[in-house]
Structures are given as C-alpha cells and as structure tokens.
C-alpha cells in the first residue's frame, strides 16, 4: 500500500524527519506513537502534501506511484486520507456541497461519472449514521460552530464518504471524551477492510484499546526507534516515554 524509505523532511532550517522507514500493507493497522515533538504530525503533513515542509531525502511509494510527485489533491484522489488533528472551520461552504465536490472530483479523476444527487444523499444518510453525526450538521458550514467531538466525528464521516485506501488518523483522540472516542473508533473499525489500511498517530495508548493495531512504532526525534506488536503500546503506556528518551538521547541520531 505505502512504502516510506529514508524520509527526511525539514521546515525552514530545522530537520524534523530524519530517515523514516515504514511499510504498510493492505488490511493492516499501524500505530505511530511518540512523545511531543517527535515528528508525528510532521509525518502526516508531509504524506498529505502540506507545502510548509521540504522533503530533503527519501522516497514514498503509494500504490506504485511516487507520492511525493503528486499534488495534495491528487494524493487524496489516489486514496490517501488525512483525518486532521485540528479540522478547519470553513464558514459559507456547506458540508454537503464540500463533500459532493470532493467525491465528484475523485470520481472524475478515475474516469467515473458524477454521482446522482439521489444516490449521494442516500450515501450521506448511511455514512452519517456510522459516526452518529446529526444529519443537520451535514447541511451546516464545514466544521463551523462544531464542538471538538463533532469535528472529529465529521472527519471520520468524510472518510466514510470518500472511502480511502489509506487513512491517516492524526491524533484523532485528542480532545475527545470517552463516549466520542468510542463512537469515532467504532466508525473507523467498521470502515476497515482487507483492501484498505490505517495509520493511527497518537500520543496515548487509550485509542488503541478501541482501534487495535497490528503494528506499533515508536517515533522519536524524527526516526522510528522501536517497532513491535500491540503490546508495545501497553508497554509505553506503563513506562512512559522516558526510557525511550534515555535510551536514544545519547545515541547519535
């Protein structure tokens, strides 16, 4: 699905990613954990194509294509989805209009016709149930006046609508209470299939009780310093990141 090799990225003069290697296959769930400032959000931003970052080295192959050559919109059209840590409010653009435009541009990219209005609305109805999103929110402006939980649910609703191959959930658990967390996680689990993959980026283990990963990677100072199964997340939760910090602080990373 996606293969990241020796990825280096900087913002200004500051190198943040310093040689990431990661291979994610269809049907897998990978969790990326790490302390604040380890480069978790930078990784998701670079993969989604945010222009603030310069990729200085390395390559990323997504479904056989060089991801880094693609524009942000083409990455999305190829099936990459980033659930934002801080979803943007866009006053005046209705959720519905936004999603219809997105869906139809993705379809056009794949040579498919526009979706009929009736089918589209049926899809909205079906998918909004998945994350228990009030139908009224669908007709409101994108994220405007939404609560933190509603914003995150709206991200997963969009993911359900666009049906991506690879979803990157960037700190989707941040700011969620336990009920909202359960709803979001249930939504993500229902969307999981043998043909798609998920990368869950999180600071805490909590989310991983609900979205159970096949692999856990610990990111520190711009590199994956440790990988393992789901038990690695529990270990991190129990011990904290201090041990990782001690272990790798001294080594020349």
């Amino acid at each position, binding site marked *: 699905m996606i293969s990241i090799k020796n990825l280096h990225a900087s913002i200004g003069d500051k190198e943040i990613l310093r040689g990431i290697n990661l291979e994610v296959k269809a049907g897998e769930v990978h969790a990326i954990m790490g302390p604040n400032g380890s480069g978790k959000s930078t990784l998701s931003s670079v993969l989604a194509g*945010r222009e603030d970052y310069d990729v200085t080295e390395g390559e990323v192959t997504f479904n056989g294509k060089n991801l880094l050559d693609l524009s*942000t*919109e083409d990455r999305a059209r190829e099936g990459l989805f980033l659930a934002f840590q801080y979803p943007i409010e866009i006053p*005046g653009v209705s959720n519905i209009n936004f999603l219809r435009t997105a869906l139809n541009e993705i379809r056009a990219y794949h040579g498919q016709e526009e979706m009929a209005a009736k089918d589209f609305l049926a899809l909205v109805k079906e998918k909004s149930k998945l994350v228990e999103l009030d139908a009224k929110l669908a007709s409101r402006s994108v994220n405007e006046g939404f609560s933190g939980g509603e914003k995150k649910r709206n991200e997963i609703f969009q993911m359900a609508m666009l049906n991506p191959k690879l979803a990157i959930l960037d700190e989707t658990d941040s700011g969620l209470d336990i009920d909202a967390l359960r709803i979001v996680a249930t939504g993500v689990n229902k969307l999981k299939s043998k043909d798609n993959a998920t990368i869950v980026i999180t600071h805490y283990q909590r989310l991983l009780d609900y979205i159970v990963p096949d692999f856990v990677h610990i990111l520190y100072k711009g590199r994956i310093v440790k990988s393992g199964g789901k038990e690695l997340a529990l270990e991190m939760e129990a011990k904290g990141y201090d041990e990782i910090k001690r272990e790798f602080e001294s080594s020349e990373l």
Partner: protein
Amino acid sequence: MIETKSNITQTLLDQLQENAPKVTFMPDAEIISAIRYLEDKGIPNNKHEDYKYCNIEAVLRKEFKTVEQAFNELTNADIAPLKIDEAINLVVVNGVYSEELSEKMIVKGLTVNSLNQLSSSEKALLCSQAKSETDALIALNTAFSANGLFLQVDRNNIIPMPLHVIYVNSGNANFVTNTRSFINVQANAQATLIESFYNIGTAKVFSNFVSEKFVGENAKLTCHTFQNEGSLSYSVNTNQVKINKYSNYSNTTMTLSGELVRNNHNVVLADSNCEAHLNGLFISNGTQQIDNHTLIDHQMPHCESNELYKGIAKDKSSGTFNGKIFVRKDAQKTNAYQSSKNILMSDDATINTKPQLEIYADDVKCSHGTSTGKIDTEALFYLKARGIGEDSARKLLLQAFAQELIDKIEIPSLQERVLHLFEKAL
C-alpha cells in the same frame, strides 16, 4: 505638452457644449452654477481627498481627450437580453429615457416619464439632493444632463413587481453620457427597483450617472444595482438619497465588470425612526479600478444604518471602500454599523479601505470593521486534502466569501445572473 487641470475640464466642457443637446428641464440657475463650479474646481484628480484612489481627471486626459458623441441607436433586439423576466423593464439609452424600448404596463400608482415632464413642484426637488457645489461630477451631470428617467410611486401604493431600469450606453467613437434619474417613492408606498448598467457599443464611454432618490414617510424602497459595463466603460455613479420618518431604504450593489467604476452612495436619514442598508460586492480583474464611497448622514434620533461591503481583487486591479458616517448632534439613539472585507488574489492587486466616523451625539452605538487578506491557505489545504483541485477549492472559498451578499438579491433571475457572472470572473 502637459495640460493643466483646468485645460482638461475646459476641453471637455467645450466639446460637450458643442455636441450635447440643450438641457430643457434643468432650471437655468442650476446649470449656470454647475458650469461655474466646474470651471472653478475642475474635474477631480488624485490630489482631491475624495478621489485619492480614483483619478477621474487622468482618465479623461488619457481616454477622452476628444469626445465624438457618436451614439448608436438601439432596437428591441439589443435590449432583449438585458431584460429581467419578472420585472417591468424600463430603458434609458445614452442617458435618454426611451418610451419606445420600455415596457408599457399600467400599474396603479406608478408614473414613468421623461425628466422634462416633471411638474413644477417636482422640479423644485430636482438638485435638492444632488448639489453641484458638493462634487464636480454632479456639476458635470447637472450642466449636461440628458433627458433621463422620472419614476414615481404615489402615496399608499405598493408596486407588486420589481421595476428594472436598464441604463445602457452605446456608441461607435469615444463618448460621454450624463444620465440622470429621479425616483420618488411617496409616503406609505413600496417599490423594488433594479438599476442595471451596460455599455454595449464598440467605443469607450465615460458614463456620469446621477440619481436622486426620495423615500417618503413610512415608505420602503429596495434597490439593486447591477454593474456589468465591460472593459470599455469608465463610470461614476452617484446616488443621492433622502429618506424620511419610519422609512426603509436598502441597496445592494453588484459590480461585476467595468474598467473604472466609482460609486458615490450618499444617504441622508432626514427624520427619526428610519433605516438604511447599503451592501456591495465587487470582483475585479485586469487593471480594473472599483471604488465604493458611501456617506450615511444621521440627522435625527432613533435611526439605524448598516453597511456591508466585500471585494475580491485579482491581477493588477484595485478596490477601494471609503465609508463615512455622520451622526449629528440631534441623532441620539443612532445605531450605525459598517463592515468592509476584502480578499487580495494577487501580489499586484490593491485594496484601500477607509472608515470615517464623525459622531456629534453622545448616546449612540456605532461600529466599523475592515479586513483585507489573502485567501485562507489552511482552508485551501483542507479542501485539497479531500481531493478538491486548487481551482475548485479557490472558487468554493470565494463563493463562500461572497454568498451573504449574493443572498441579499431577492429577485431569483437577477441572482442567477449575478452568480453566473461572478463564477465566470473567479
């Protein structure tokens, strides 16, 4: 040879005096004082505070040194595409009201006529709001006014359909028009007015429009100004509005094209408990200059005014909003709000905004806000991250920006026309 200020004005005056038909309805005294004012002050250039970003003199020097006044005759076929289905369409060609091209419909309480048909009592109102000594462009219009439109709604009448005035200029060599209209909505009357501005000829036009509007006691006038004059048009549009006790006046100006468009929208709230709402939206590209000046004059207590102006400036175009609010000493309990928001779409585009509040009463609520920025890159990234292309994403955001103004157009086919042109201009 560099021409002096007075030379430019004098050259224009000489040419117009030679070519323009004699103004028959304007009182002689008004014409004389208008000419005198023009000769004295000249057409304003950028040294004039009110025309700082809109150098009319330079336009005349550059584009209208010789004025041929070669007008085209227009037919019904020319006008048909400009009409609005759900309205009564009235036509003013090169400043002259055309009974022939206008739709004839007998509506109770509605009078539509040429300005030279004004009764003597109505004539007394002429120039009472548009005063030559306040602005050289008003003076120019007063001195050379063509036989424009007189529109009156008699007291206690509600006109059931919109009235659409099509002001159309058309010529085949450089020309100047001085279009004038006089709109009188009497006490307890109501009307919806659309004023559309076009130039459909092949020649450059300097279009100098003046409209005096009176809204009587407890009357309501809802106006829409639709400007789509194209790249050959340089226009100054002055609205002098006086509204009375318990009345309601609103105007929404949509500027979709025009090489230079200067709008002076001046409203006097002459008695208590009345309200005025001025809105505007422009989108400019190329080297266009769009300049909205408003003046809201609160003279009496318990009145309200609202202004919302938005602009999108592309390429090397420029936009200006200058909004002055007077709250005179008797105008206690005034509520006056003003907001101007703009988006710059290129590094070469310019926006100038200047709110001016002069408040002489002590128990009032007044506020103003202005913002100018680029398109929100975070929002743009968010849309693109969902598969929406750069172009569509920009358009979605700009449409969202403009939507609240487009929503103010209450006439569906006009709204559609605006939306279509707006999307095309994006």
